[in-house]
């Protein structure tokens, strides 16, 4: 079973994924620090002005303080996401709640989406949908699908994600992919070797629904060790 996996490709794509996400997270944290830096700097500027006898509106100080607090909360959320992502390599098989995983992937991919002018929309499922799987491979596969999905949104510029429970396990659907049918096959086409290796490792299946502009990932309720 696992002996047939393409470990070299899985390692390569996994490291690339880890690197991409880490770089994006560090960029986000740098922005948080840059905003705190400017807001704290402005507070300092106002203090210097007050020392020179210029009155400061207390409301102004409150605004500055609340802006700093907002960025601290943002930074805290980023670090929490980073921590969850980092712990996804702890165990080769674990129960994963798919709404939760999709939420994490939307957060981690937010900057990539924003750079492309694409909105990610997570359609919440009515109930919890859990599968036993390799959490890191799952996130890697979701990222590759999301990266591709963002390139075929057309003018809609939106990807809608939804997890559903099915008889054999669970399904994740990427929809609103207006240009899915128009993507020419060729080098770098989707799905490629990396997606195939991850699908094999997760015992998952990918369906490309060109007419409806949807990608479906189908997972068994329990992947094999």
């Amino acid at each position: 079973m696992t002996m047939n996996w393409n470990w070299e490709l899985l390692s390569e794509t996994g490291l690339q994924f880890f690197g991409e996400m880490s770089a994006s997270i560090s960029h986000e944290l740098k922005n948080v620090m840059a905003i705190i830096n400017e807001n704290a700097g402005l507070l300092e500027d106002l203090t210097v002005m007050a020392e020179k006898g210029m009155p400061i509106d207390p409301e102004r100080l409150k605004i500055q303080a609340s802006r700093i607090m907002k960025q601290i909360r943002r930074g805290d959320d980023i670090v929490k996401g980073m921590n969850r992502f980092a712990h996804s390599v702890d165990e080769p098989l674990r129960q994963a709640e798919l709404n939760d995983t999709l939420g994490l992937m939307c957060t981690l991919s937010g900057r990539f989406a924003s750079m492309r002018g694409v909105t990610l929309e997570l359609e919440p499922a009515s109930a919890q949908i859990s599968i036993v799987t390799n959490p890191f491979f799952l996130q890697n596969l979701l990222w590759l699908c999301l990266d591709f999905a963002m390139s075929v949104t057309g003018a809609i510029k939106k990807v809608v994600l939804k997890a559903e429970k099915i008889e054999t396990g669970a399904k994740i659907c990427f929809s609103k992919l207006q240009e899915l049918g128009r993507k020419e096959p060729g080098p770098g086409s989707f799905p490629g070797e990396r997606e195939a290796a991850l699908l094999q490792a997760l015992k998952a299946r990918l369906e490309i629904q060109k007419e409806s502009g949807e990608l479906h990932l189908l997972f068994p309720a329990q992947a094999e060790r």
Partner: protein
Amino acid sequence: MKVLLVDDEHELVSTLAERLYLRGIQADWAISGEEALTLAEKNTYDVAVLDVKIPRISGLELKRRLQAGSPATKFIFMTGHGSEDDFKNCAAETGEGCYLVKPVNIEDLIRKMNELMKGSGD
């Protein structure tokens, strides 16, 4: 000196603009390349401070388009990444001295802008 600040983080550019104003520097700000190009159609800027990674139009592409409309404008790049690639690309566009890593010290930024205005930014 008239300055254009471009970064997709609204709070970053608006606050930086206010701090520059308190130091006697007039600064407009934009949170996208498109907004920056619209502002540049109506105003002439001595210096444009651009984030390297902004949505849709990259900082490097924006620099080329702003420069086409205003060849005298000087450019400074800001980045959160500080990656080797960013540094090389920005240095190739503007010279090594015109690349600042966030968070930026405002006095360093003003010093850099003044150097550029005097023609010694590289």
